[in-house]
């Protein structure tokens, strides 16, 4: 069984990402169960998605420490998912912050990226901070963060086959070419990191 957790802000494409993963899993003949936690707002709220893949996947929610892979589309949201991170968890983290109303108004401080990474590292050493947003802006597609982070995670873990994911992107997503390009970028980065760790 593989447990993936998506930590994101509404509007970042966290739900789309979960649909891509679930559809790819179905294509590969895997059992899948997905649970979503979202609030009342249409945009800008916390959106967390729990995905279990494999034969013994039943519950749409996780126990503490149970996530195998965390796809962190936003730093503070990834921090909010801290309790699901265990020693073995791979965390891929997009470093670009999206402020909350309370941090914008100065009612509380937005945790610095160093602090976020530090606190995650207290639980797992396998933290990968990438500026996915910057990568996406370079390709003139700032909405592609979700596919970039997925690409990195798939490049490192092989949790799903890249070919299946690409097929799903073509079938499901609005801008397949841009999304494919971004996914490939992430994939290449993930593979490179994976090689450098192995080597």
């Amino acid at each position: 069984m593989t447990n993936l957790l998506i930590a994101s802000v509404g509007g970042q494409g966290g739900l789309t990402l979960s649909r891509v993963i679930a559809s790819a899993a179905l294509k590969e003949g895997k059992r899948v169960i997905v649970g979503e936690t979202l609030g009342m707002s249409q945009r800008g709220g916390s959106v967390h998605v729990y995905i279990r893949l494999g034969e013994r996947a039943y519950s749409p929610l996780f126990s503490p420490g149970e996530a195998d892979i965390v796809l962190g589309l936003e730093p503070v949201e990834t921090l909010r998912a801290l309790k699901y991170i265990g020693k073995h968890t791979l965390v891929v983290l997009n470093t670009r912050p999206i402020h909350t109303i309370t941090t914008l108004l100065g009612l509380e401080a937005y945790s610095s990226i160093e602090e976020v990474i530090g606190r995650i590292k207290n639980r797992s050493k396998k933290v990968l901070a990438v500026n996915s947003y910057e990568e996406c802006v370079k390709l003139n597609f700032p909405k592609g963060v979700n596919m970039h982070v997925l690409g990195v995670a798939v490049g490192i873990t092989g949790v799903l086959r890249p070919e299946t994911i690409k097929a799903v992107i073509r079938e499901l997503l609005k801008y397949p070419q841009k999304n494919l390009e971004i996914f490939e970028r992430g994939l290449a980065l993930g593979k490179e990191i994976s090689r450098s760790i192995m080597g």
Partner: protein
Amino acid sequence: MTILGSEGEERVLMGNEAIARGVLEADARIITGYPGTPSSEVIMTLMSLASRLGIYVEWAVNERVAFEIAFGAALAGVRAMATMKAPGLNVATDPIFSSAYSGVNGGLVVLVADDPGPHTTQTEQDSRWYGPLIKLPIIEPSSPQEAKDFTVMAFELSEKYSLPFILRTTTRVNHSSANVVLGPIRKRHYSIKYVREPERFIRASMEWNRRRHKWLNEVLAKVEEDLDHDERLFSIEGRGEKLIVTAGVCYLHVKQVLENNFRDWGSSFTLVKLGLIYPFPKRPLKSLLSRKKFREVIVVEELDPYIEKEIKILLGDLSISLPVIGKLNGFFPLEGEYSPEVIERVLLGKGKSFEETVQAPRRPPPMCPGCPHRATYLALLQALRLERYRKEDVPIVGDIGCYALSVQPPLEAIWNEHSMGASISIAMGLKAAGIEKPVIATIGDSTLYHSGITSLIEAAHKNVDMLVVVLDNETVAMTGHQETPAYAMTLTGRRTTPIPIEGLIEGLKIKWVKVVDPYNFEEAVRVFREALKQKGLRVVISRHKCVILAKEFRGEVQVDYSLCTNCLTCIRATGCPAFAYSDNRVVIQEDLCNGCGLCTYFCPHKALRVVS
């Protein structure tokens, strides 16, 4: 994901999509409801297929009307469904109570989606109590697959027993996605007719009512006798001496915890899953409890101790003394949503405690960048300030919808948000109690149509001295953009007669009614100031299309850093999430900014401007 496909095909479907598929498999023809998270996707999924399949799928003005339409269809022999969230069921219960005495001809299913957590609901209502209260059968699925299967079953059973069936779900089933194997679509031959049977359908004779009550009790007894042991609704796994009784999504959590933590959990536990919630399956549980010696009974259910109380009654009847591990003795919480973690704490005897408290800044749900409600409340608050009212002296009553997010800083506008349509009448009560300063009710367009309109009739009739602001964003935004009665065409493509709010309230003869566009900000402030000076009932319709639908702001806001002093007034005044503060200066995140330009009204240095 598409719900079309042949028998045996597998899809990953969300619980609500699976229910929609169940509707197709059962060949139900009339599906109606009122939007409410987490129930809305059933109708939203079916809407896209409605005209192709020739079925009636439409939102109704409120849940009560939705139920009555579905009930009427079922009287004519057509399978029908009404969908709603838990508070919506409260709106619909008056006719549902009576429908239990009449019964139906075609299968009638009421989908009610409860929200343990709660995630998006004003209360953690446990609608299972409506079973014994209304006297209608309730079944509850645990997974998307069961959500589909139980929907089909509910239609069949409803028809078999001539009784409406309630399909009760929780957020975690409605909004989970999982593999679902499609079943056959069984096209039915409908002969549509409605026969006059006064004793069944008229509730004006008390003698008939008494007789129908007896009939209802007899049918419920038959439902219990036939279904309590139906293996689709009652399953037993394992053979251990600790008995777990559960239902709904809690079954999946329990199963996950057992699978993850025990090599052979069946030797220690016996796991019973209930699908029939009312009438309660007493007989098979009694038989299980009396033929096997258990050490304890563990009841895992969210919200109220409904199953637990039934189990305690059974144990009493059997004179069996067994510890019942549940909510009544404090093992499980009475509030909130359950997760594997909650169950581990009890089943494993110890909590896998999470030592580190997460100190992440809160992310309260914000209004979107470009949300017209932000502009309306800012104009209203500005008008109060200019008219020299202190914010803390003028109650602003809110209602159900995105505009309730105005409670968050920096607006901190509404004082009260209660239930659909309540704002106007609550404001009336405040005024009647003797509040001398202005009292303001704020209500959305759909909420006004839903039930606020009856309060507005009351306020107009009594000419109450208050201001009613209708925040008209021309959609039901919060639940995912459904249409309102102001539309000339529904989302299924049905041509309709639009009923604009001005036309709707014309007959109320309210003397002072104004329409403003909150993005014409200075004008909006002027109108609100004028409204505050008047006496009697005043209505301001503040109209601007929801930014997610409108997309008409094509520009973007830019900061002129030669003028910006970093005073942060723009952020403090609007709280717009498109702002960020980085490298010690105000930044506008272009991927979030919708270019509405509201912030430009507040910059004291004229450093913000809209560029197209």
